[in-house]
């Protein structure tokens, strides 16, 4: 017995199939070698499943039945405007598969790979988590294209029934496609979240819930776009800017989610945080550039940095929840090349520093645009609210890290524990001051008592006060107080994390 085969057997195997010219066969062979192996395997597997053929058959049958109904309803009339109704009906059929089946199957495929431990076998081949995940996502997109090929002709057919124009069809399909890719990426990322059986069950349930809710949201959006076009809204500059912003949100968050999934599946010896952190920084910088361009195009409208400042701040608070709660320290091979300013390397310390930098940087950037808008009291209030949100983000993140990582026991030091602590202190910070105000016979929204309340504090800083000539409910000096508290908490958290990293590296 030998695992070494004779060259003759290899030559015999590589001979082209009868009837296929050798050059064509070779080209196919080379092309196949360049393909991601996961794509070949997953598509092959997917096409063998009963689910695929049953879904494909049902999709085709439903579209055929709908087109027969459309034909029966319209063939006697000279002119009808039924196109939008039938387009929407065909789209619902496709959406069931694209927004439900494909993302869920992508989740299940990766979750099973992790459960059965085939994941580690794939890692050992040298493919790497990035290529593996890319292959997984691509294979499900190939399946999505196959489903779309069944519905595509019917969607075009609806155009000939009048009542809907080609740009609307195209826009819905492009946005639908982007949404499907985003959902697939989110599902794949969800499959990396839990390791225990209970955790997996919870994630699965949550994902199904999210898919159901977003399915109806997507259908509502499509219905509005197809039916209200011309009356409710038109394709003007605002619409396209909004569309562009939505598309950017899908693309950039999809990228971020993908990088997060890759990081979660990487081994600790790898520089697993570099790509997701870089993606987040790129997202923040590019969003700021895009926002500035929009602000400029919309005649320096202060609503744009005002709204985006708060939305971006909330997004960053959510992102830092994961970034700053990484484990302490990093593996031996990575330590040598890590400098104080290399914030993309693994470790809670660098994640925390980058989080603070992004939160503060975003608030300063948006505040700058607000200042350049018109310098009115309204801009100042919006700027203060944004700054307060960022400072609360830093403060509560620091408190959660101090509570979780300061004790020597390490009972609450795990990333999950610190995340839960973050949520808990946030909820307590938002809920306790109003309750305390009730006990002290004060107004629930009392400004001073709620100075460190992340919700009411932000609202109070942004509120207009008719009784004050400046229009500010809270003076900027109080914002400085919040900044001082946040700074002290951040400094303490930074020192604690630095000490823990030092101890982790000494082991």
């Amino acid at each position, binding site marked *: 017995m030998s695992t070494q085969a004779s060259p003759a057997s290899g030559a015999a195997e590589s001979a082209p199939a009868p009837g296929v010219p050798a050059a064509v066969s070779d080209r196919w062979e080379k092309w196949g070698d360049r393909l991601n192996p996961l794509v070949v*395997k997953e598509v092959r597997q997917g096409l063998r499943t009963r689910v695929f053929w049953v879904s494909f058959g049902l999709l085709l049958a439903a579209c055929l039945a709908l087109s027969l109904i459309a034909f029966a309803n319209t063939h006697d009339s000279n002119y009808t405007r039924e196109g939008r109704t039938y387009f929407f009906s065909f789209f619902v059929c496709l959406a069931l598969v694209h927004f439900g089946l494909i993302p869920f199957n992508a989740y299940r495929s990766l979750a099973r790979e992790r459960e059965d431990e085939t994941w580690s076998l794939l890692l050992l081949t040298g493919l790497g988590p990035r290529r593996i995940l890319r292959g997984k996502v691509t294979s499900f997109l190939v399946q999505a294209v196959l489903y779309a090929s069944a519905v595509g002709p019917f969607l075009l057919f609806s155009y000939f029934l009048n009542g809907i124009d080609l740009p609307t069809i195209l826009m819905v399909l492009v946005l639908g496609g982007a949404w499907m890719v985003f959902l697939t990426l989110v599902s794949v990322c969800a499959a990396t979240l839990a390791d225990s059986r209970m955790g997996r069950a919870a994630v699965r349930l949550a994902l199904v819930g999210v898919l159901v809710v977003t399915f109806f949201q997507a259908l509502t959006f499509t219905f509005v776009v197809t039916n209200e076009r011309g009356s409710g809204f038109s394709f003007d500059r605002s619409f396209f800017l909004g569309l562009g912003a939505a598309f950017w949100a899908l693309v950039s968050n999809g990228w971020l989610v993908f990088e997060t999934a890759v990081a979660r599946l990487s081994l600790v010896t790898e520089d697993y945080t570099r790509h997701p952190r870089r993606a987040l920084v790129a997202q923040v910088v590019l969003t700021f550039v895009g926002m500035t361009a929009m602000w400029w195009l919309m005649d320096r409208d202060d609503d744009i940095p005002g709204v985006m400042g708060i939305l971006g701040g909330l997004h960053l608070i959510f992102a830092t929840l994961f970034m700053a709660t990484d484990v302490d320290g990093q593996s031996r091979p990575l330590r040598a090349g890590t400098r104080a300013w290399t914030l993309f390397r693994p470790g809670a310390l660098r994640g925390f520093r980058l989080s603070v930098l992004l939160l503060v940087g975003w608030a300063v950037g948006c505040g700058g645009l607000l200042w350049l808008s018109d310098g009115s009291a309204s801009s100042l209030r919006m700027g203060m609210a944004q700054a307060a949100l960022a400072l609360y983000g830093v403060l509560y993140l620091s408190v959660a890290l101090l509570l979780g990582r300061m004790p020597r026991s390490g009972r609450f030091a795990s990333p999950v524990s610190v995340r839960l602590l973050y949520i808990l202190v946030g909820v307590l910070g938002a809920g306790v001051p109003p309750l305390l105000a009730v006990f002290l016979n004060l107004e629930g929204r009392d400004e001073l008592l709620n100075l460190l309340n992340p919700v009411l504090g932000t609202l109070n800083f942004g509120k207009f006060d008719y009784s004050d000539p400046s229009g500010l409910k809270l003076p900027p000096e109080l914002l400085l107080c919040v900044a001082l508290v946040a700074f002290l908490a951040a400094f303490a958290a930074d020192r604690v994390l630095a000490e823990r990293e030092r101890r982790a590296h000494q082991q």
Partner: protein
Amino acid sequence: MSLLEVKGLRRDYGALRAVDDVSFSLEAGGILGFIGPNGAGKSTTLRILATLDVPTAGTVLLDGTSLVDAPDRARPLLGYMPDRYGTYDDVTVREFLDFFARAYGLKGALRKQRVESVMEFTGLGPLAHKLTTELSKGMRQRVALGRTLLHDPRLLLLDEPADGLDPRARIELRELLRALADQGKAVIISSHILTELAEICDSCVIIEQGRLLAQGKVEDLLRQSAGPSRVMELTVRLATQGDEAEALWSRTERTLLEQPRVKDVAREASALRVRLELEADAGPAQAEAAAAALLAALVSQGLPVCAFSPRERNLEDAFMTVTKGRVA
């Protein structure tokens, strides 16, 4: 220089120390048995050796390459088969192997050649077009072993490979592993089926609660575990039938216990197990003389002895002596 050098390996999970200062080495062409009770740290050690986990401390060198510092360079040199076979549904044997060959970066004719030779080696040729889900456990295990061999690794790490296999499949696996060792591959097998390991392995490592308790060649381990007090075990069978059988067994038991060197007699299914204590410096000749005296005593009593043989110590005995049955 050894192919694999493990020095001071330690792995902590919080307060729990799963592996504690484990050191051993393995030459090319050697088969090492990794023995320990459940939770002893066998799988953790194998996962570290497979670069799927990182040790808290210690070094692991595979052909001079550090598995901890340069896992990417070491991976092509090792093949890992976990206790789960890790096959996919709706995929044939050939497709499964072809997929992993692609994943290992094998291209064109070379890939086909490797898949064919691995199928030939593992005897999977006739099953090439069968779905992996239709295969028996033994055959699926061969597919998993085939996958491990695709990139021609120098070190094979097999976690409980014989678990759940029928006797025929076990014998076939043993032959496959022997053939691989003959090709110069080093093999590490973790298993709790000790009789199997004794026949396959050249050397063994016994760990308990993450600590290495004993290591060395199988015969050395047996000798060491026997200890300084010489105890000889014998198996006695009687030719008995009918109503008198029980009376004969009792009489034999009594006769044995009356002999000066006999310390213990235990009744097994169809035999008696006798523990005979010898002097500390007793050699093989004295042991044989003591056994002969015992047999003579039984025969002189007219007992129908049909089998009388010394019981060899095996790996199970060594394992039970070395470990205390605790788990981490």
